[in-house]
């Protein structure tokens, strides 16, 4: 008889503790994270169709924290994506510090906190144009000291009559470029039109080079 009393008591205690688990202290998760490299306006993130605008940091170079207003419950999924890129930039889910993979989509509760990394970079475009009249070997164009060089292939004999299209390495939006003839081709002098400018939102294709006999 003794054991028959103990069993119901145990069952009651178990039920009570289960009820406590299901009470009002339900775990809630905020979908939050940080954006690195944000410089310009108009970044909009989205989680399951809910948009969230993220403004650039007050201090240049700092990262920006964001948090979606709606809380998630344990087991809810989230999927944060870039809805609108900022002006002049491209943003995408990045790999967090000490992480291996992007962490923008997962199930709430698998990790203690949700801390998504979004990485932004400034768009960059090539600088180039055409080269006309090149007959000599050895033409090298340069964009300053750090913008890279373009070495023209030795022209065929007889030289092609159509202009050569060239492109120097990419330049970030808002950065200046200045193309000069670093080495003149054998027996010729080349000049550059539209050599300088500030990079906008498209490839530069009007830095044209004309070569004539020296």
């Amino acid at each position, binding site marked *: 008889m003794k054991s028959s009393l103990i069993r119901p008591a145990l069952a009651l205690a178990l039920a009570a503790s289960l009820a406590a688990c299901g009470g009002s202290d339900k775990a809630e998760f905020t979908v939050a994270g940080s954006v690195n490299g944000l410089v310009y306006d108009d970044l909009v993130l989205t989680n399951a169709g809910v948009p969230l605008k993220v403004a650039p940091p007050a201090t240049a170079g700092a990262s920006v924290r964001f948090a979606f207003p709606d809380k998630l419950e344990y087991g809810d999924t989230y999927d944060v994506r870039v809805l609108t890129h900022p002006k002049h930039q491209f943003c995408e889910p990045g790999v967090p510090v000490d992480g291996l993979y992007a962490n923008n989509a997962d199930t709430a509760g698998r990790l203690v906190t949700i801390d998504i990394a979004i990485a932004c970079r400034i768009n960059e475009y090539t600088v180039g144009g055409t080269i006309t009249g090149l007959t000599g070997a050895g033409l*090298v164009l*340069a*964009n*300053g*000291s*750090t*913008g*890279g*060089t*373009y*070495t023209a292939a030795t022209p065929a004999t007889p030289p092609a009559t159509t202009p050569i299209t060239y492109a120097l*390495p990419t*330049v970030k939006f808002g*950065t*200046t*470029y*200045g*193309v*000069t*003839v*670093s080495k003149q081709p054998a027996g010729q002098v080349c000049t550059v039109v539209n*050599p*300088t*400018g*500030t990079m906008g939102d498209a490839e530069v294709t009007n830095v044209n080079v004309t070569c004539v006999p020296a």
Partner: protein
Amino acid sequence: MKSSYLRASAALACAVVLTACGGDDGQLLLGGTITGVTKPGMVLTNNGGSDYEIPVPSNGTGATSFFFPNLISSDDKYDVQVKSKPTNVDQCTLIQNTGRAGFDVNTIRITCTFKTQALTGTVSNLKNELVLVNGSDRVTVPAGATTFAMARVAQDAPYGVSILANPAGQSCTIANGVGTVGAADVNNVTVTCAP
């Protein structure tokens, strides 16, 4: 007696095979990215050997990815160091250059800085603000200035000083604006403005 000879030779054969597996011919890549290679002479080593000279990237940026031609094996320790530097490199910083291979390794980051030289010149007859560029380096020269200084330039790098914006009401020309920086400062860039 016969069987014991067999066993011994079988054991020997096993040992030979195992040694072969542990040799240099692994199956994993070892590499990463490096910056600052604009001329020959950048030699990397792994564990003090496997010397590998980084080919100079053709686009002049000095940045490239690299892999040692010698493959390494799973679980091999690696320790990549810079054995020798091109003459224009000041110093190199290595990140994630040591470890133990599990998969292909492409996480080594080597950043090399160049020895630099000053790039300066003179201006004459400048009546309004002039903007000069050397590629991404932008310098505003105020009215009345007689000298200007661009950012320092790496040794062996090309330079090309050109005009981004002429002064109001004037047109300027540049002499000695193009060249390649040697081991000395460049101070002969001459800007002349008219009228």
